[in-house]
């Protein structure tokens, strides 16, 4: 896996050859001591504590990023190993523990220039989530056990790889059939529920949609991470390869987020998705409608019995409609969700919970600010990128000047000037690299903001579940009262007929039966609503806590990064100032 990082760097280097080579030439030629520069080697990547080590590692990153293309979209696909994300966190944590232990704060800080910014070794411990460190890591790429209560050795890591084209089974009339892409989904885990510690399945995007839909049904009120878009338009417009890669990355992120959710990671749906070979045994959305007609099916239990895996106690939450009486609920909800989708003539939900309304308002504000911050973060990243680029171009221009002066030199003053220029140029090229490295790190840290945009959508989803559950309750209540009104009317009419009205009495009996069913449904609906409200509350609380911690970590990472690179850049220029100290005019008396 280490090799793959290098391989990426190599491929990209060829594209950028002229400029990078020139820069290498500069740095190689100079070969000076600002941290053991040598010509960049692709071989020393990980764990190398010298500057050249991390610099070569980072240069594979900066090589991977094509400076000419817009930043955010390029980095995501090109940055194919998301493990790069927390690379600085190992250092944050080591620093953190160092600093936590000391009584004083950073009066004389250790130079952050010593902080190693090497990308993670895939096998290193640091990627293993757990309570070993209280500071949280970036949400973006890893599944983490956040709650302190979980055992510190829990982990689950999902990788999506190996996209392959496959043919639709030939029930289609069209010869050649439909092709689609499947992805290999590899899970490594030590969670007991899963059985084997490593396993793989192949899934297509449609399966992911199914998974997402089933989760949405089962986990109403929860803040479920949003799944990647279907994005039909993009798939036409983009290069196939690019699109597939983008989707692969998105899928990986999605599955990792799911497995990071303390409740959802234990869901049958997810387990089934990750483990069951062959066709995904979850009902597709079209199946739900037919299922409704056939009666409820306890799917997960059956499947696990089939697979031979240990029986999993199925939580009530996983069970869809139980028995015929719940059919009514299902039916009503289906009707509601349909009317929700069409908007318009939805009966208004009367939400009386002031606290909830306030919270909803707050969440909305928060979302606005996250959007705004995320945009400004992108601008900042672009500005840093540009700075690095221009600095590099300046350096290269001076290199050319240096060469020129040296070649054409007639006077010693020219040679002196050429030397001065060379020092400046070398520094500029080095500084340029530092800016670019700084930037790719910055992107990862500030990516947390982007991540939480997704989570805000999840919150909206949770609130929407609540609203629709409340709507169900209210609908049933009004249904109930109208049924009861009809019953009363019938009874009143019937009692006027002496001896009883056989047909009316029969109708009343039927009505009473319906009322009972509706009453039950109403109670179920109310229980469901309460349950969803609870889910909302606990989820929002959980998310708030996680978000605050994640943001603090983001800030820490961002700041540590800035400090580290600012120091490096400062050193580079201080050296030039030293080399040109004979030109210091401030010391002269005027």
């Amino acid at each position, binding site marked *: 896996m280490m090799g793959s990082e290098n391989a990426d760097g190599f491929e990209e280097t060829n594209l950028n050859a002229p400029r990078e080579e020139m820069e290498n030439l500069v740095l190689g030629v100079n070969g000076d001591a600002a941290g053991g520069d040598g010509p960049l080697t692709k071989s020393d990547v990980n764990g190398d504590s010298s500057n050249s080590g991390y610099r070569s590692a980072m240069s594979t990153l900066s090589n991977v990023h094509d400076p000419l293309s817009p930043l955010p979209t390029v980095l995501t696909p090109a940055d194919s190993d998301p493990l790069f994300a927390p690379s600085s966190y190992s250092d944050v944590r080591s620093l953190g523990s160092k*600093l*936590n232990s000391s009584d004083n*704060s*950073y009066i004389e*800080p250790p130079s*952050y220039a010593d902080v190693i910014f090497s990308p993670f070794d895939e096998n290193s411990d640091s990627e293993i989530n757990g309570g070993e460190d209280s*500071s949280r890591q970036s949400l973006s790429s890893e599944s983490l056990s956040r709650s302190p209560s979980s055992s510190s050795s829990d982990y689950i890591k999902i990788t999506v790889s190996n996209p392959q084209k496959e043919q639709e089974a030939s029930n289609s009339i069209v010869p050649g059939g439909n092709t689609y892409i499947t992805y290999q989904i590899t899970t490594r885990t030590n969670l007991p529920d899963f059985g084997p510690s490593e396993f793989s399945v192949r899934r297509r995007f449609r399966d992911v949609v199914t998974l997402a839909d089933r989760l949405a049904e089962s986990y109403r009120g929860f803040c479920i991470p949003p799944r990647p878009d279907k994005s039909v338009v993009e798939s036409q417009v983009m290069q196939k390869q690019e699109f597939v890669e983008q989707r692969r990355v998105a899928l990986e992120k999605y599955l990792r987020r799911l497995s990071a959710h303390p409740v959802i990671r234990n869901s049958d749906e997810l387990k089934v998705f990750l483990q069951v070979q062959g066709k995904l045994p979850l009902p597709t959305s079209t199946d739900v409608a037919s299922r409704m007609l056939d009666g409820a099916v306890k799917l997960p239990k059956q499947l696990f019995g089939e697979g031979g895996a240990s029986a999993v106690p199925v939580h009530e939450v996983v069970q869809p409609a139980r028995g015929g009486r719940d059919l009514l609920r299902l039916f009503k909800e289906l009707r509601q969700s349909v009317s929700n989708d069409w908007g318009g003539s939805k009966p208004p939900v009367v939400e009386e919970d002031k606290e909830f309304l306030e919270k909803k308002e*707050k969440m909305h*504000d*928060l979302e606005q*600010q996250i959007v*705004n*911050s995320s*945009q*400004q973060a992108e*601008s*900042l990243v672009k*500005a*840093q990128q*540009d*700075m690095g680029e*221009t*600095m590099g*171009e*300046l350096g290269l*221009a*001076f290199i*050319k*000047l240096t060469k*020129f002066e040296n070649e*054409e030199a*007639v*006077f010693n*003053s020219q040679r*002196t*000037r050429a030397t*001065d*220029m060379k*020092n*400046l140029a070398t*520094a500029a090229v080095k*500084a340029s690299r530092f800016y670019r490295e700084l930037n790719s790190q910055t992107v990862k840290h500030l990516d947390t903001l982007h991540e939480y945009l997704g989570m805000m959508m999840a919150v909206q989803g949770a609130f929407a579940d609540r609203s629709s559950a409340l709507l169900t309750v209210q609908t049933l209540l009004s249904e109930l009262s109208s049924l009861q009104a009809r019953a009363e009317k019938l009874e009143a009419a019937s009692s006027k007929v002496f001896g009883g009205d056989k047909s009316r009495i029969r109708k009343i009996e039927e009505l009473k039966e319906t009322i009972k069913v509706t009453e039950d449904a109403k109670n179920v609906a109310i229980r469901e609503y309460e349950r969803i409200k609870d889910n909302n509350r606990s989820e929002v609380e959980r998310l708030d806590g996680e978000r*605050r911690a994640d*943001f*603090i970590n983001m*800030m*820490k990472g*961002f*700041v540590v990064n*800035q*400090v580290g690179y*600012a*120091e490096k850049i*400062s050193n580079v*220029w*201080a050296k*030039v100032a030293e080399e040109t*100290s004979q030109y210091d*005019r401030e010391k002269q008396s*005027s």
Partner: protein
Amino acid sequence: MENTEQPRSISGSMQSPRSPPSSQPYLSVSVSDPVKLGNGVQSYISYRVITKTNFPEYQGPEKIVIRRYSDFVWLRDRLSEKYKGIFIPPLPEKSAVEKFRFSAEFIEMRRAALDIFVNRIALHPELQQSEDLRTFLQADEETMERFRFQETGIFMKKPADLMQMFRDVQSKVSDAVLGKEKPVEETTPEYEKLKHYVFELENHLSEAQKHAYRLVKRHRELGQSLLDFGKAVKLLGACEGEPTGKAFSDLGTKSELLSIKLQKEAQQVLMNFEEPLKDYVRYVQSIKATIAERGTAFKQHCELAETTKLKEINLDKLMLTRSDKVGEAEIEYREIKAESEEATRRFERIVKRMNEEIVRFQEQKTEEMGVAFHQFAKGQARLANGIADAWRALLPKLEASSSV
């Protein structure tokens, strides 16, 4: 006589001339106190020019006059005309557009450039003797204005003229006047090398200057984005509970602070790095003008030498035939000969001057660039340190917050 007191570095602004020891001859000038005068299209900047000197030709030890940009142009043109072969120090661009805005930055940069211009002249061993310089430094404003209006038409080199000179220099086409196939251009290897050097140098320098200018913009852009980012995260912090809210607020404040540092550094880079590079480019352009002058002088020298020879041959012929035109021819011959000798002298003086100027130029530029690089490096180091310090200050609080 020249002021060899200090090494010839004149970068940085001088608000008043230095007062060196009185025994040595000195001529020291400062350009200061820009004042905007006039209205709208006719507005202009006037500068105070203070001269301190003990040169006997000057009216006194100190003189203060008021000058405007076109006066400096007049001086430059006069010197170009009279001191061919010398690299006349360049002036900042006329810039008709900027004039309307007259931002503080622009005014200060122009003032500094004009100050450097005059001082370079004052320090040059030949130029400092110039009568026109004395006029410029001492004449009252009305006299100066008269001079300026008189001379502008005659001596102002239009761009078209300069272009023609360049073409003459660069072309190897034979001279139409002589009607001969002989190329009328110096082709000594040293001179060829020099010309090639000068033209190439301009290209390289322009590129470097272009990137330096972009770098200034990048500083400004980064500063702006830090400002916007700071504001955004502050607003975000207001939505969040503690301790994240406070952390965002601190982060935002620091970001805004750093924005200011970046804007300041942008200005420094502009004045102390980009401007010297631009000045370097202008200087090279001045050298190109000198090369053109030399080309013209060489052509004249060649042409007149040829013509003289022809006249001599003609005279000899007439003398042999005892023609009565001999007398006339003899006079003509002597006149042409004198002109030719004058042309040759002029050309040789240009060559001699250029040789000396090149040495001066290279040394001067090494010095000035060295200063520029040093200031740039110091500025960048200072900026980076400031950034590191500012962010570092946040870490204890963030650390405390994360362990809550």
